[in-house]
């Protein structure tokens, strides 16, 4: 059973990893957190779920729709909460993006109601058994799509001019501008990609939990926050590793201790890490820590 629980933990971790990637991209681009990303994931997931159950479209199409919705919502968030907000006030984009999150949640409950929505299974009945290990169809989809998205993101960031530009802006936005990189456009692109990842994470999480509720947005943001702080702010790889770690820790706590202590243990872990090693477990550059 331990092996099965470890696999459960890793699966949980992969959904955390996507949303952590999403947050870390924005941290890299702007040294700021977009507190509406949890709601962005939620609205993408709800729309995806509704498309699948009401319009009867396939998972692939619903997934692409969720990505597009995430991208659009994140783009709008950038314009509302970051582009025209003075950089001098550190709390301003935090509160502003929290406001956007509030609006998203409220609009969703207004338009589609406050009920949770079912996310239909994709590969129903598919079950792979390897020794004591059992992996069902949905889990297979989650694992492979999350892995694919991560690989695509790494490829994009490391192998394309725009990806290099994103990393350049994340290192030093002024210098990137002096090299001819259109910084504001690159930041908008970063938000759009981050929204795409949030959308993917939202629908895959929905698939893993079988439903989505309009009230999970803020919770998602909190989980992501814990993950990226543990992994080192803005550290893309650190975030992925920390996500898998937290997934496993949460799962094992629930399985062998009690769900009541799950959050307690995660919070303590993050708290102790911050005090003992403020740059996170795997820091990329300590500069970010000082700037955010």
């Amino acid at each position, binding site marked *: 059973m331990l092996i099965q629980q470890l696999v459960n933990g890793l699966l949980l971790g992969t959904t955390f990893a996507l949303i952590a990637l999403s947050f870390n991209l924005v941290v890299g681009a702007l040294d700021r*957190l977009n507190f509406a990303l949890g709601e962005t994931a939620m609205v993408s997931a709800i729309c995806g779920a509704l498309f699948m159950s009401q319009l009867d479209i396939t998972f692939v199409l619903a997934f692409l729709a969720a990505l597009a919705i995430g991208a659009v919502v994140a783009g709008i968030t950038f314009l*509302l*909460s970051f582009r*025209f*907000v*003075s950089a*001098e*006030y*550190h*709390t*301003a*984009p935090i*509160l*502003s993006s*929290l*406001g*956007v*999150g*509030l*609006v998203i*949640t*409220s*609009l969703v409950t*207004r338009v589609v109601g406050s009920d949770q929505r079912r996310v239909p299974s994709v590969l129903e009945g598919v079950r792979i058994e390897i020794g004591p290990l059992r992996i069902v169809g949905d889990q297979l989809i989650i694992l492979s799509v999350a892995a694919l998205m991560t690989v695509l993101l790494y490829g994009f960031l490391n192998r394309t001019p725009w990806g290099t530009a994103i990393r350049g802006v994340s290192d030093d936005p002024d210098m990137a501008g002096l090299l001819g990189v259109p910084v504001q456009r690159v930041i908008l692109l970063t938000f759009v990609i981050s929204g795409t990842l949030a959308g993917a994470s939202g629908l895959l999480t929905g698939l893993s939990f079988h439903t989505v509720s309009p009230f999970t947005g*803020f919770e998602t943001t*909190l989980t992501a*926050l*814990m993950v990226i*702080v543990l992994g080192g*702010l803005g550290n893309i790889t650190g975030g992925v590793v920390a996500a898998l770690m937290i997934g496993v820790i949460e799962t094992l706590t629930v399985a062998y201790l009690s769900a*009541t*202590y799950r*959050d*307690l243990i995660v*919070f*303590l872990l*993050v*708290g102790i890490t*911050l*005090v003992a090693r*403020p740059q996170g477990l795997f820091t990329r550059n300590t500069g970010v*820590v*000082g700037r*955010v």
Partner: protein
Amino acid sequence: MMDAYTEAVVIRLGIAILLALGYWITAATGKFSFGHAAFMSIGAYTASILTVKFDWSLETSMLVSGLTAAVAGAFIGWIALRLTILYLAIITFAFAEIVKILLDSWDYAGGASGLFGMRGTTPQLLAICIGVVIVYLFFLTRSRKGLSYEAIREDEQAARACGLGVTRISVEAFAVSAAITGVAGALSAHETLIITPAQFGAPQSLLIILFVVLGGVQYFWGAIVGAVVLTMLPIWFDFLEEYYQITYGLLFVALMILRPQGIVGSGTERRFTMRALARLSPKRGKADGDG
């Protein structure tokens, strides 16, 4: 005599003002806590246990709850205030969640279903508390210590370079802030009649921050303005019904673009000069001492 409604509104307003003033003290040093609801719940539970289970008077319990919250505030401040804004935010937030989880599983205090049977908050009692805090703030903002708060808020590096004990000053401000928040929590518990851990979650912490950010951190009376506006908005805008949340969210987006410094305050022009900071330096000759 006030009718029940007026009294309820006055008390709610008073508690909001007390919370805002308490928070302003730490915000004045540039340290934003995202878990002040924890100090509220510590105060609320301390006072409620004393009045309900031990039959203490509300006044005495209130003082004890302020003290308890101050101790908790000093502890968290000592751990977290050396870190940057975001990390302070996360530590304080995690602390609030941990307090909530612990209260949820504390059977003596009623666990998740909470405590009830508290009563006794009066407008007079609140007026006295607010009066005391305002007098304290009046003298604080005109003192050397008040100036050092401003110095730390505007430029912590420079303040440190001038030899200010930044950590000690911030921790002290944080503890006083927690104490006032704890007293506000105690008074709030004795008005709401029932307290549950769920009432002191992230939304409550956020509301307290909003009081101060909306009002502006420059002057303490800005916090009062913020508290009054945010408490009265839901009452004034009752007609918005289900569109209230949307309006509320958009209001914040607009405010952060148009007046990120809050309703009160002069904005980007820094009133604070480094010359004033130099006056603060205990040893003038050692202006660029330990960095």
